[in-house]
């Protein structure tokens, strides 16, 4: 764990302790399980976003992809397509979306912001058109025991969304921090040109990052669709991309690329859900929800940059002192 991760963990624990002290209901089994479920769901696509942000890119279509693929998944399953087939189709569509974004960004040299902003509008529009702006849902009384068990069931009280989140997080941690591909992601995000001069196929790395992001988002879409059981395409997943970006930034990812850790983004997700909970449990008007989240992120980022400046200044002073000492000797 890096220094930033430990700092964030402290913050998570502190906020948790404060909320628990003020309102003991925070620690009730029901509340913990509900919060954990949300952490799992939001964690899946926040990790997805992190893979794109580390390459100095951005993916703004996360929420719309969750809506579109959610609609398609629910509709396919409701129409009688076996759910494993439907799930594979949805994941494959995610891969196609990621491939398209990556291709537009690397081959046609479009800006990631523009490409994925258009994606945000396009997928939302298609989702609403597909259902005639109606709600996609299962027919009354229909059940899919295996699917429901896998996505919304619990094992020993732990929601399966959390299990999925932990598995994905562990895999993502390994991929980003322990493999050559992960090292290349950081290198491309830090300085694409230098990465190219080191023999890295930078376009391929970037395209893979967008594919990975979209496939994980597709997985999140399935979990969300099963959680809500009916998908209202005009509102389902709204603002989720911003939520994911916020979690990544809280977790130490720089929008300039090349920085961040999976542990950080996971803690970021936890902190955001904690804050949501805090708003609910402390009786703060829920309309202030976003304002609280925004303020905490802003304060966190300011504190982080100030610490960083302080550390850099101290390091430079130390280097200067060392240089002075050697030159005085010589």
């Amino acid at each position, binding site marked *: 764990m890096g220094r930033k991760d430990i700092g964030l963990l402290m913050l998570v624990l502190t906020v948790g302790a404060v909320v628990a002290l003020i309102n003991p209901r925070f620690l009730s089994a029901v509340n913990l399980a509900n919060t954990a479920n949300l952490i799992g769901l939001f964690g899946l696509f926040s990790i997805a976003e992190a893979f794109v942000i580390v390459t100095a890119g951005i993916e703004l279509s996360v929420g719309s992809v969750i809506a579109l693929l959610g609609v398609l998944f629910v509709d396919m399953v409701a129409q009688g397509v076996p759910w494993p087939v439907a799930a594979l189709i949805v994941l494959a569509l995610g891969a196609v979306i990621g491939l398209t974004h990556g291709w537009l960004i690397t081959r046609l040299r479009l800006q990631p912001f523009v490409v994925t902003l258009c994606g945000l509008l396009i997928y939302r529009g298609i989702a609403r058109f597909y259902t005639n702006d109606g709600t996609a849902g299962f027919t009354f009384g229909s059940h899919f025991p295996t699917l429901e068990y896998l996505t919304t069931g619990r094992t020993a009280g732990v929601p399966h969304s959390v299990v999925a989140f932990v598995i994905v997080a562990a895999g993502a941690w390994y991929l980003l921090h322990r493999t050559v591909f992960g*090292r290349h992601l950081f290198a491309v995000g830090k300085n694409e040109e230098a990465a190219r001069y080191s023999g890295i196929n930078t376009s391929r790395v970037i395209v893979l990052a967008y594919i990975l992001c979209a496939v994980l988002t597709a997985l999140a879409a399935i979990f969300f669709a099963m959680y809500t059981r009916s998908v209202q395409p005009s509102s389902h997943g709204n603002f989720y991309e911003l939520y994911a970006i916020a979690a990544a930034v809280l977790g130490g990812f720089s929008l300039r690329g090349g920085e961040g850790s999976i542990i950080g983004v996971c803690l970021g997700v936890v902190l955001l859900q904690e804050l949501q909970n805090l708003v609910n449990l402390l009786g703060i008007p829920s309309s202030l929800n976003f304002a609280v989240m925004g303020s905490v992120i802003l304060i966190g980022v300011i504190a982080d940059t100030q610490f960083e400046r302080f550390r850099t200044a101290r390091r430079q002073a130390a280097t200067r002192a060392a240089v002075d000492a050697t030159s005085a000797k010589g």
Partner: protein
Amino acid sequence: MTHDPITLTLSGITKIYPGAVALDSVELGIRGGEVVGLVGENGAGKSTLMKVLGGTITADAGRITIDGVSHAALTPAQAAALGIAFVHQELNPFTNLDVAGNVLLGREIRRGRLGRIDRRAMSRKVAGILETLGTRFGPDDPVLGLSLADQQMIEIAKALSMDARLIILDEPTSSLTLSETERLLQVVCDLRARGAAVLFITHRLSEIEAVADRVVGLRDGRNAGGLPRDDITRDAMVRLMIGRDVKRVCQPLDHAPGKPVLEARGIRTEAFPERDVDLTLHGGEILGLAGLVGAGRSELARVLFGIDGARGGTITVNGHPLARQSVAEAIAAGVCLVPEDRKGQGLLLDFPICDNIALPSLSRLAPGGRLRPRAETALAEASRERLHIKASNLRRAVAELSGGNQQKVVLAKWLAMDPKVLIFDEPTRGIDVGSKAEVYALMRALADRGVAILMISSDMEEVIGVSDRVAVMCRGRIAGTLDRAKVSEEAILHLAVE
């Protein structure tokens, strides 16, 4: 502001940078109705002197006297107000504006209380200027699509619109065709006839022969003498530029070079699509690639390394052709590049030293794609030993190292790949004398082990002192290749200038 001819004298101009004297008591005078050619090698101090004159840098000593008024330094605004205008080598027109908008940029004619831009008045004013220049385009034409020569004319029109009395042309013809150059030289003569002073900086000595009234030479930041009108010849100018004491800084090759390793045939770069480059690099030799800035040397290096695609030609390494023109392919074939821009291209500055060294070697150090930190550390430790990298901790960011040690890290990256061809682009730019000697010794040691080395350098001392053979580029082609016995500053310069 006066319209009388200018009288300008620079005296005792000195500019010292940490570790280098850029200008040492330089004298230069010019008056209205005169064209002065300024000649000197790369790094002789021409640009620095012009920056002092333009007010973008301040000299440490010396006076600038204009029309009898002495200044210690000028600000850019002062220089402009006194009628000094620059026409730069790099053109950056605003292609979203029309010609008049570019010429009068920042000095738009306004009218009315809201300060609305008066396009018609601007157009009229610029039309008058363009007429005197005899351009083929008008004030309302879009800039997009104009040739480089026409863009240059816009720069000159801009200077005239400011009532410039001294116009400084910095390599104005480097990208122009022959007929465009002739037109520009005609404009220079017209300007002189109108009483303006023109300071003409160029590596194309024939142009100076054609228009200059006087030549001033700079060498190593000092005055190297001058030539009056009647004595201006190509040979005399080359003599002004050279004359440095150059000694070998590196042991010469003591055996015959090996067989050809890298062969490039008919390479055409994006920058010079109609020039073919042929180059053969032998194992065990250091081939110096000399030439003036902008001759196309770095472009060639980038093509050889697969960064840029070639417009044509073939590259073979030990007889195997490089087909896909990608960096990965070049590296796999054993071709590595130590780039010119160390901080932007050579290194990931915020990454640990260790990670930088290991980056290209990861496919070998991390079988199956799983990182093996211990293997990476071992490699970095071995590199530190071998190259004497002065770093207390290999986990620290490479940005914290000195320039010389950073360059060693770049080298370490490639040495770990066991290169067959190593291309250095300006290998010792911005590094200290001690590290320079180490880099040279290392180049020789690698060559002795059979590596073919191509060294691009604008430092004459380095080219002559280190190379076994020198190829000289000029305007995108190899103007000639000199064996060691024939290598001299004079011979190189004769090939490098046109």
